[in-house]
């Protein structure tokens, strides 16, 4: 699954909890509770709708103007990369 030049890492499991999306990295034996905006983005990405629709819907749901939303998305994804939840495509 590819999105914005990234893909999800292997051996991840997720669930919708009241506090947000919980992701378990089974390989590295870690779990993360995603924050509100992160949870929204996670669910949009998992549903595999196209990039444009993700940007549009994410912008509406978290009330950030469309011209600023890409920066927000990339900053979230960068945070996930640091946690090992996503990997950059092609290295």
């Amino acid at each position, binding site marked *: 699954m590819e999105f914005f030049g990234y893909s999800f890492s292997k051996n991840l499991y997720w669930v919708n*909890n*009241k506090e947000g999306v919980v992701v378990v990295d089974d390989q590295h034996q870690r779990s993360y509770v995603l924050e509100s905006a992160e949870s929204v983005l996670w669910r949009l990405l998992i549903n595999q709708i196209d990039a444009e629709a993700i940007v549009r819907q994410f912008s509406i749901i978290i009330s950030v103007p469309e011209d600023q939303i890409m920066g927000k998305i990339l900053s979230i994804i960068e945070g996930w990369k640091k946690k090992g939840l996503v990997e950059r495509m092609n290295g």
Partner: protein
Amino acid sequence: MANLIVSNICNANCDFCFASSFLHKKMNQITQRFMSFEEIQFYMNLLDQSGVHDVRLLGGEPTLHPNFPEIITNIRSHQKHITIFTNGVLSEKVLQTLEDITPDVCSIILNMNAKILQDQIQIREKTLIRLGNKVISGYTITNPIFTLDFLTQMIMDYSLQRVIRLGLALPILKKQNAALHPKQFPAAGHCLAEQSAITFQKGIRIEPDCGFIRCMFSENDFSILKEHNFHYVSCCSPVIDICTDGQILHCFALSEKYYEKFDQSMGILEIRKKFLERTKPWRFSGIYPECGTCSYKIRGECSGGCLSMIMSRFNPVGVSENL
């Protein structure tokens, strides 16, 4: 404490069986097997080295092991306390062995809702008559509406120990055994509170097994249970299973995911610790979406339920293995 799975065959056919992955009848690729006497001796030495003093014999049906009396003698020679989990359909040889042992040396937990045949029921009756107060009744809740009346009556009629070891039918991850659904827990909790009045009147104590959660009991039901001497515990502290094929399991419920081939370089306690580390990330959640924010869980009064149920809620991402 450690579980020795000395037999992978069983003469009962319980829908809720936690050990079904290891039962001969249900997995064609696994052949009928009993743990050899040499293997048992080896594990006994290992348990001695690890300082484990309690050994529980399980199966399948552990008493079907052809050398069952010798196993008991062997474990006793290691000064260990033995607990036997059985369906009570015992041969004369096994009955004689168990008649000679006192309850302080060996506990016998008899699965009272094992699915056995009519002629087996008669054999079990003989067991109850002859072992009497050596027997602790085990009961697994498979339906949220249940009664302990018949069990109470049996305890009185056969002078069994005035204890019921109460379990919940929990799912084996990736398998299809009959199990309670999390939505049924509150009804089962309420029913248990009602039933506890009857057992309490007869001086029978109910001891819960794993998988119980705090919110399955309303405040009112919880007070009733407390009054009736029900010691609620909610924890997931597995007693590892040592199987006939040399596999070590976290527990039966997670037998399809967390197992290790026995490694001589690690002691039993180290293997258990490794399992606990591997399962730790899942323990932050619970069987309900609300568990992560639940005050009972935050305060450590509830574990969030059976890990198998918790893990079943999760979805794999991309190339993850299906849970």
